[in-house]
């Protein structure tokens, strides 16, 4: 078993040094405690392997929670990330760094409630650092749970949609499945034709995949596709 020292992994994989808060600095969970059990050992194994980072962008958020999201909302986003981490671990992909950022309400420019066209406008106007896949949290997506682009670019200055756009929805589990689904598209996955798969079912052919809390499977072939995306970083 490889060395799983928190300090050494925090330094080599996350660029953080002591004093460390494991929850905040190693998991990246800055929004307080969640009703989920965290395994430090599993997490370190995951982020030490091939991984990607996430730029989590809260649209219309204020630091004093007077904007679009309250404390419970941010904790649900955080729990969603934790669910997504478990789902991606099935195919050996870690979610390493979380860059939590916000678009102030005054700058949100009507992007708090979007449809497919609005999601494109939002990601064409804003983007996080190229080091991670952009995941925008909006108050509502009116024509789906979220929108992404298949096999999205790693250069955020590329034209078109350069991130995933999600609404805050359902339970922690649903939030995590939705996040894994939309980021899965970004990493190159199409809809799967199975409701038990993270990439869901689109048997009606409208381009919107159906998923639910039980859409948790990822196959080895899907993992191979994800692993080949430009945002996947080597083991650290």
């Amino acid at each position: 078993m490889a060395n799983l020292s928190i300090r050494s992994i925090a330094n080599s994989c996350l660029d953080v040094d002591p004093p460390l808060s494991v929850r905040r600095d190693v998991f990246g969970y800055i929004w307080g405690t969640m009703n989920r059990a965290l395994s430090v050992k599993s997490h370190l194994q995951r982020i030490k392997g091939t991984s990607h980072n996430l730029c989590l962008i809260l649209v219309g958020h204020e630091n004093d929670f007077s904007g679009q999201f309250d404390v419970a909302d941010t904790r649900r986003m955080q729990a969603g990330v934790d669910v997504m981490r478990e789902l991606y671990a099935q195919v050996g992909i870690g979610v390493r760094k979380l860059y939590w950022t916000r678009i102030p309400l005054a700058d949100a420019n009507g992007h708090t409630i979007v449809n497919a066209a609005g999601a494109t406008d939002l990601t064409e106007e804003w983007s996080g650092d190229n080091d991670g896949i952009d995941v925008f949290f909006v108050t509502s997506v009116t024509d789906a749970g979220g929108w992404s682009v298949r096999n999205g670019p790693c250069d955020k200055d590329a034209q078109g949609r350069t991130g995933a756009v999600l609404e805050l929805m359902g339970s922690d589990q649903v939030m995590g499945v939705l996040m894994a689904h939309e980021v899965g598209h970004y990493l190159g996955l199409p809809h799967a034709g199975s409701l038990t798969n993270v990439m869901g079912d689109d048997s009606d052919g409208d381009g919107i995949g159906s998923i639910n809390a039980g859409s948790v499977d990822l196959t080895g072939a899907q993992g191979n596709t994800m692993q080949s995306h430009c945002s996947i970083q080597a083991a650290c």
Partner: protein
Amino acid sequence: MANKEDSEALGSKPSTELLDAISANRFGCFVDLPRLTDADVSVLQRILKGTEKEPVPLDRKRAIAALARSSGSPDAVLLLSDVVASTNESQRVRATAARLLSVSPPALAERALLSNLAVDDEAVRTELIASLRVVGGVDALQTLASLADVGSDALRRQLEFARLMIGLRVAPSKVNSGRTLGVIWEALKVVPIDSVRVREHLHALHDSSYGVELSSEVGFEIECSGATHVVLLNAAFERGAFLRPLRSGNAIAALVVLAEKGVAHLTVRYVVLTSPVADGVSVIVARGSGEAVYSGDAIADGAGLRLQLRDVGRERVPTEIGGMITEDTVQLELRVWRGAARPKRRPLAIPR
């Protein structure tokens, strides 16, 4: 305070104008930067060479600026060149001297600039190349053509611009201004679609049509960045009478909807708003957020209206939309910028 004895011993005395021009403590507010007299230039050259005592605390940047604008003599150019080369001078002074050589006689300046091109200070080298852009000739072009791996993007851009501008002076047929400056436009295909296709799009529209009854006969598709945009006209626009609704009053003339690959339903991205004006029609294309993204006019031209729109506001990709509208036809052309795009906005970090 001038050292009266030294100045007089050398045969001339610094004037008030010279002292104002070179002092670290006295500043005149000159609308036109005054040129010094020949006598003052002589004094100033001796001061800068160190053969005459500084009559006042000296601002060397101001002093060389005064020299450069007052004299284009070989001595003055040589002195400026020595300042550029001297590592005893500050970067600010050396870079300024390099830039000021551009106002010296071109042949002298070019030699001085080229002789200093090997300096290891990027800020100074950037100014040398910027000056060669202005005064360089054949020799400069040959030297700059052989420079490789010049450093930062800013320096590389300055170098390419210098090659272009010198090229335009000495070999204009061999340059391509647009390519050098990254001015790249791409014409996009605007395809008129038949009524069957228009009806398919109307059926797939999964969004409000703003209360507009949309034409089931006329529409256009535009492929851009992997997505298709569909222009759906207001049903008031009927073939044989396209112009009447434009001229009769304010209107929502069209909706532009986004059709993504693999997604069966369409959503509205832009609304096209028109208003009659004296010689035609004013046109604004706005997002659902209320931001105007394209604006322009359709101006009377023969039997029709000639359309010309440009991007406005924060749109990242400059875009030109043109075309011709007659009673029977609507013809659209679209050009998008393929050079460097405007930067995106960055969200704020949330404190941990």
